[in-house]
């Protein structure tokens, strides 16, 4: 009789835990990672493995320093951060670059703020932006994708978005980009970060996550739609200067960002309404940076900026509590 558990209600708990979510996201990232491995070969495998191992190692170190025990190591968040970071790096990233990225992601962005749940910015994204600002040359030399090879030699090549920005600066028009086949970036046969090259594989992962209820449709759909609609409007206004919306869909880190980074639980709004605001905001900032900014790609910056706005969004998008007058009723 003395052995009964006297915990408060409810006595039933769902089987979906943090681990479920983390490992589902990792699973959903695998198609994208696999495409990266196929086109970038051994190099990609090296980057992914190193990034994951280092992130887990630093997570363990941080937990040790903070005296938290190794229990949280099992939640998979460090593995996920490592994988996401790797997918945001060029496939020829040197080891020291990955090391710095992991330090920034795990120590500076996550554990300085208190570990999983307390960080206000997406660790992998902060690491990516830190590296991009610190080492722009290394971070923007993308190897050309080719079918699977064991060779570590690479030829670097600009991304379609980079080409577009250059051409605009130089000639005031889109140049070759206007006529390129959009099937290549859709499948993944164009330059870019390791994990962002295949819109198709990333979309598949996104559909899996939404179907399994790990993420909701709000952020990815509003994010991608906003980018589509805005680039479409500009394209209609001046197709010489602005690329087609489909081009913006399939190039750069949009899919990776919208599906896997913007939806990060910890750093995105919690209410459905807030998620929509967040998605639209991310989309608008991405478009502005891509079309008018100094950098060719704006997904990382857009998401980080909106991460900063998340507490504010949450505060102003509280759902109407049951039994309270709706806004319309309150006015009447």
């Amino acid at each position, binding site marked *: 009789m003395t052995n009964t558990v006297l915990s408060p209600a409810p006595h039933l708990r769902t089987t979906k835990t943090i681990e479920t979510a983390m490992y589902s996201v990792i699973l959903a990232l695998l198609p994208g990672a696999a495409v990266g491995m196929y086109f970038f070969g051994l190099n990609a495998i090296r980057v992914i493995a190193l990034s994951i191992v280092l992130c887990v190692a630093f997570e363990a170190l941080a937990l040790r320093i903070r005296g938290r025990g190794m229990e949280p190591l099992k939640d998979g968040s460090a593995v996920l951060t490592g994988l996401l970071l790797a997918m945001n790096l060029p496939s020829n990233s040197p080891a020291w670059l990955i090391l710095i990225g992991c330090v920034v992601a795990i120590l500076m962005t996550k554990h300085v703020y208190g570990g999983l749940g307390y960080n206000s910015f997406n660790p992998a994204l902060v690491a990516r932006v830190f590296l991009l600002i610190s080492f*722009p*040359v290394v971070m*923007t*030399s993308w190897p050309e994708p080719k079918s699977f090879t064991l060779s570590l030699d690479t030829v670097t090549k600009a991304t379609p978005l980079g080409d577009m920005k*250059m051409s605009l*600066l*130089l000639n005031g028009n889109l140049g070759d980009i206007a006529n390129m086949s959009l099937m290549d970036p859709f499948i993944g046969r164009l330059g870019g970060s390791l994990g962002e090259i295949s819109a198709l594989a990333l979309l598949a992962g996104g559909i899996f996550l939404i179907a399994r209820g790990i993420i909701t449709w709000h952020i990815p759909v509003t994010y991608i739609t906003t980018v589509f609609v805005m680039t479409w409007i500009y394209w209609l206004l001046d197709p010489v200067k602005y690329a087609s919306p489909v081009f913006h869909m399939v190039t750069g880190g949009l899919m990776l960002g919208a599906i896997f980074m913007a939806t990060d639980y910890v750093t995105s709004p919690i209410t459905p309404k807030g998620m929509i605001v967040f998605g639209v905001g991310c989309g608008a900032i991405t478009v502005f940076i891509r079309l008018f900014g*100094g950098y060719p790609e704006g997904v990382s910056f857009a998401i980080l900026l909106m991460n900063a706005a998340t507490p504010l969004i949450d505060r102003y998008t509280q759902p109407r509590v049951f039994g309270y007058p709706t806004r319309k009723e309150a006015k009447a």
Partner: protein
Amino acid sequence: MKGGMARLILVLGAICFASGFGLAMVYEITKEPIAYQKKLEVIRSLAAVLPGLEIDPDSQYRDLAGKDGDTVRVFRSEDGDGVVGVAFQVIAPDGYSGNIYIMMGVLPDGTLGGIEILSHAETPGLGAPITEERWKGIFKGRSLENTDLRVKKDGGDIDQMTGATISPRAVTGAVKKGLEWFRDNRDNILSAEEASS
């Protein structure tokens, strides 16, 4: 409280007066050196772009109409036979961030004596190598005739640096425009008499 008020005014006034007096003195002392430093700056840049030629920036210049209706101050180095080199400032508006100010020296035959970056706000490390001697040195002796003044990436002859294309491209473009302006206004720039501009 009247007396108190008077004292406040008095004290504050005294402090202001003392401070004003002190500052006036410092200003007098530093006026000359500051003016000299500013002149020195121009002289240095002129010496860099027209090596071996002497110019007094206070007198040897002429203000001419630029391409876009602006005024260009052209510093001119003369010897007994006429102008042996000119230098003027051009602006590259299309860098990463903000204008890049460039001083360029041109010899009468239209070849470059050299270029000097006066100021820029490019990202350090990424765009800033344009200030390095080994890059600026490329321009010496170049002219519109002997060189395709575009960066190699765009099919020209000027070597851009690894990774950074935008800043060198901006500078190269500005220098090319400057040379074109020189070619189109050569007679006016080199003429002995003040043009009626």
